């Protein structure tokens, strides 16, 4: 439940500039999406926020405190990777417990916490299984559980629906929304799917070629933005009175 600010972030690999002048503020408890085609540095932003990568220039603030020098494990920002990255040698339960164990939480508290999560996610029968025995959707839920278990300040979701079919996707999606409501975690999601971004988020940032082209409330995005690249990317959109959005080809609900 924190506010994050990225100020003037630059990042490059060799000569290759990946991110330029990223300035974003994500409000406390907000569901924030970063939308853009693949390969524009979305994941890099996440890695910078978590601390896996260090920016060449710029600062990251959480609740007004600069965290550039805080090591990864002290930031309490958890990222759910698009390929889930469950630890293959641990079963689902151990995966979920991992973060808590690292924090030296007492055994009873761990049990309590994990039980309530298991119940919440309806995963009772699967906790003894190893990652490769779980389906894609279940893996994603375990990854979510693992992330939430440590009560992160910020939850980062990197393309959370990769590899899931429509049914599973809706299933996972519902859980994400539910978590967000229940725990009020500031959540940032990376996606290239317009519908997901529009249907889930409070605010959307458009990332093109390493720069943020536009940040706005979802509700305000019901017409042409006036920025060519974004309009081209989004195509025709109309917001109906009941809040549904019509893209050129389909209707989605918010």
């Amino acid at each position, binding site marked *: 439940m924190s506010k994050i600010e990225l100020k003037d972030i630059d990042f490059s690999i060799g000569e290759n500039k990946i991110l330029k002048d990223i300035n974003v503020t994500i409000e406390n408890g907000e569901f924030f999406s970063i939308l853009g085609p693949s390969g524009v540095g979305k994941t890099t932003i996440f890695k910078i926020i978590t601390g*896996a990568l260090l920016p060449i220039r710029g600062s990251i603030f959480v609740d007004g405190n600069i965290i550039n020098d805080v090591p990864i*494990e002290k930031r309490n920002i*958890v990222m759910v990777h698009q390929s889930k*990255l469950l*630890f293959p*040698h641990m079963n689902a339960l151990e995966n979920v417990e*991992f973060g808590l164990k*690292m924090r030296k939480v007492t055994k009873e508290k761990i049990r309590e916490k994990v039980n309530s999560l298991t119940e919440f996610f309806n995963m009772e029968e699967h906790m003894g299984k190893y990652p490769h025995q779980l389906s894609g959707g279940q893996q994603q839920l375990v990854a979510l559980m693992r992330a939430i278990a440590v009560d992160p300040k910020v939850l980062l979701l990197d393309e959370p629906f990769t590899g899931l079919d429509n049914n599973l996707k809706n299933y996972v999606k519902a859980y994400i929304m539910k978590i967000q409501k229940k725990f009020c975690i500031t959540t940032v999601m990376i996606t290239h799917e317009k519908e997901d971004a529009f249907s889930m988020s409070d605010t959307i940032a458009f990332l093109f070629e390493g720069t943020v082209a536009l940040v706005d409330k979802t509700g305000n995005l019901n017409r042409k933005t006036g920025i060519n690249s974004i309009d081209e990317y989004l195509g025709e959109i109309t917001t109906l009175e009941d809040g549904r959005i019509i893209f050129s080809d389909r209707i989605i609900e918010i």
Partner: protein
Amino acid sequence: MMKKFFYRVVLFIIFTFLILPMLSMLIWSFFSNWRAIDILPSSFTFAGFNYFFASKDWYIGIKSTIFSMEVALIATIISIMVSRFLISTNIKNKNTLESIFYLPMLLPVISVCLGSHKLFLQSPISSTFALLILHIYFSLPYAFKMTYSYYSIWGVEEELTARGLGASFWQAFRYINLPIYIQGYIGSFIMAFIISYSQYFINLFIGNHNNINFSMIMTPYIANSNRNIAAVYTLMYIFYGVVVMMLTSLMGKNIARKKSLS
């Protein structure tokens, strides 16, 4: 079906090709004569084994396996360090740097020994330490190659995830990296061990009388005409090596035990 049969046959031939020499070694360790006209080898003997155990050579063998294990351990640790550095940085000359670590594999051992002997003689370090450095020099690239190929395919993402969840660097390494990569590390260790264990010229040329290793006592016998002795020494040489390899694999399995349980 035909195709499958063909593949099997090729595989069979390959394995036969690899195993026959081992078989000949076994035969010659227990026999001293097998003439062209004889169908079976004659003159069963334990002379070779008797000699091996009567002389202090079995002890030298153990000493040199331990030395090589130390070398392999250091080489593996160093190669993990290098791999982690290479995988997590994006410097411009990464490939050049990587190639530098392969250089020792390509340089002829004798050239390096002859060349570096002068260096070590001029420096204040002892010959045992010089020997250690050269052993690491030659085994490091192999260990590095193994480790780095693991790292470059699977990255360190899992570890970063763990750290995101609050694990410190060492915790992440111990609980996540080690179990996942252990096969690769064991591979590097074994490879480095093998390279160090089979070095002959380094010990000969750089070392002193305290650094006699198994290869060094084995080689003259092999090059001489008593096949029984040669075979026994080769057999024992392999035996020591295999024991070390099995022990390390076992340890690796133990570390990755949970994984294999699944």
